[in-house]
């Protein structure tokens, strides 16, 4: 039972990540490989606020989201001038820089040693200590974030983003402020990603920079790509598939030493095959055209 709850909590954390990345990749058409950076910044800022200032988890999270949104401007401002693989390279650069800061700014983040002993969230005297309570906490966030994105995807805002994705120049010609819309899309997507960071830190109670590497960004991106982007159900299917995949492999009796490699081989191969035969992913809409 605890095992299933653990998987469900991880699914919830990744659902928030994939839904928020979907807004950037699937709706705005900006192929970003920097989502783990915002996930990491969210986790670190919440943790540091909790550990150093003694703030409550929820207050810390409330401060973290706007801060991460501000940080996301660092990516979205340069992105306005870049297209295609230049943009992708810029996001990779940002991801590497953030990892490097988390890893090397030892006086603040303790670098490679990580931060142990993070407190579980407490709300009105109730501590989310047990697995079921933490599951409901993460489910609560998923429902709020899910509703938010459901509304956003359907709203005029979401439709303008789709227009930018399909044809940026036409959208401009229709009088839409493409630059500010792109910035808003990154602001919202990255701000929401920090919620998962905070949830992850509160759940695992230990964070270190190796959870937020370039390969983690690639993993989050491949969730969105495998499930499919540009609609609501794609990222959900992708998350469930990609988080459960290693567990299925475990049940097939693969030894632990090779299981991570086999898992990554499968999703690498999946990306190639999907891009060749079904670029919109398992259940997505956006075909990267």
């Amino acid at each position, binding site marked *: 039972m605890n095992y299933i709850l653990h998987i469900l909590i991880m699914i919830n954390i990744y659902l928030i990540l994939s839904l928020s990345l979907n807004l950037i990749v699937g709706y705005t058409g900006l192929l970003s490989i920097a989502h783990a950076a915002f996930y990491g910044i969210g986790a670190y800022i919440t943790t540091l606020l909790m550990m150093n200032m003694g703030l409550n988890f929820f207050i810390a999270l409330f401060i973290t989201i706007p801060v991460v949104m501000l940080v996301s401007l660092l990516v979205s401002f340069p992105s306005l001038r870049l297209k295609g693989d230049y943009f992708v*390279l810029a996001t*990779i650069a940002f991801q590497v820089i953030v990892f490097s800061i988390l890893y090397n700014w030892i006086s603040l983040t303790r670098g490679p040693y990580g931060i142990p002993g993070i407190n579980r969230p407490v709300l009105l005297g109730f501590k989310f200590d047990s697995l079921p309570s933490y599951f409901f906490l993460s489910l609560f966030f998923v429902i709020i974030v899910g509703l938010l994105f459901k509304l956003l995807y359907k709203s005029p805002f979401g439709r303008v983003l789709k227009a930018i994705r399909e044809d940026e120049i036409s959208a401009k010609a229709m009088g839409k402020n493409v630059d500010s819309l792109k910035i808003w899309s990154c602001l919202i997507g990255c701000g929401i990603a920090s919620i998962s960071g905070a949830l992850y830190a509160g759940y695992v109670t230990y964070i270190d920079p190796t959870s937020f590497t370039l390969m983690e960004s690639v993993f989050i991106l491949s969730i969105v790509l495998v499930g499919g982007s540009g609609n609501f159900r794609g990222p959900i299917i992708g998350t469930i598939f990609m988080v459960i995949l290693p567990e299925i492999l475990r049940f097939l009796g693969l030894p632990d030493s090779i299981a991570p490699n086999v898992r990554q081989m499968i*999703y*690498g191969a*999946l990306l190639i095959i999907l*891009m*060749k035969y079904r670029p919109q992913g398992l259940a997505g809409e956006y075909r990267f055209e």
Partner: protein
Amino acid sequence: MIWQFLANGLIRGSMYALMALGFGLIYNTTRIFHIAHGAVYTVAAYLFYTCAILLKLNVFVSLFLALFCSGILGVIIEFSIYHPLYKRKASIGIYLISSLGLYIFLINTIALFYGNETKTLSPGIEKTYHIGSIILTRIQIFELISFIIIFPIFLFFLKRIKLGKIIRALADNPELSTVVGINVKKIRIIIFFLGSILAGFTSCLGALDVGMDPHMGMNVLLIAAVAVIMGGVGIFESPVVGAFILGLLQNLLIWKVSSRWESMVTFMLLICFLVFRPQGILGKKRRLEET
């Protein structure tokens, strides 16, 4: 100290330059952001390891085999993955994601067979030479010499040989070069073969120098991409400029600050170039429609 720093910077720069020349050759002509080039880099080093250590072949025979096989791997990648996408006129995003998927697949296949740990090729301590106040190992001198030999050959090939001129024509205007009867499919295969051999050569030298692990490819690939963009996209010899700047800068950091901030400074530089001078050091400003 300053001479040692310059020597180390130049050696590192020449390794980056060799990798970046291969990456630039592919990127300039096909416009594919070939992330799997990093995987070719890793595969070549492991092929070399298999031949030289596991099968106990002669070093030069194994180097030849490793280079040939990495070239063939490049051709297989082009033939099985990029060419179908090219025929379909796929977008940049699709190329990029396929390449990323291929990178993940190949790297993990290597890790599955050889393990994730670092392997070294040369046992014991490498022989060193003292030139004035500079201390260099034998393999470092070899790295510098191989760049000095390969770079003029590369330039001669591109500027004087007919095949090189065809490659430049293809880079300049893919559609027009089909009109004048260039067999794009064949030329692309040759480009991937040559580019992959350059990557393989760099990786074998690097493996002899500092050893290897399955995940080394990504870092080298990104530095090659940074060098290409710094030098200027569209000019085949320009990555050398970027590569030497990076090599010297990284060694300056190691000397004056610490090697920890190496990747951060490299990528800060990349972002500055992307934002303020996207055409690179040698590039000319182009209009949007031309790119």
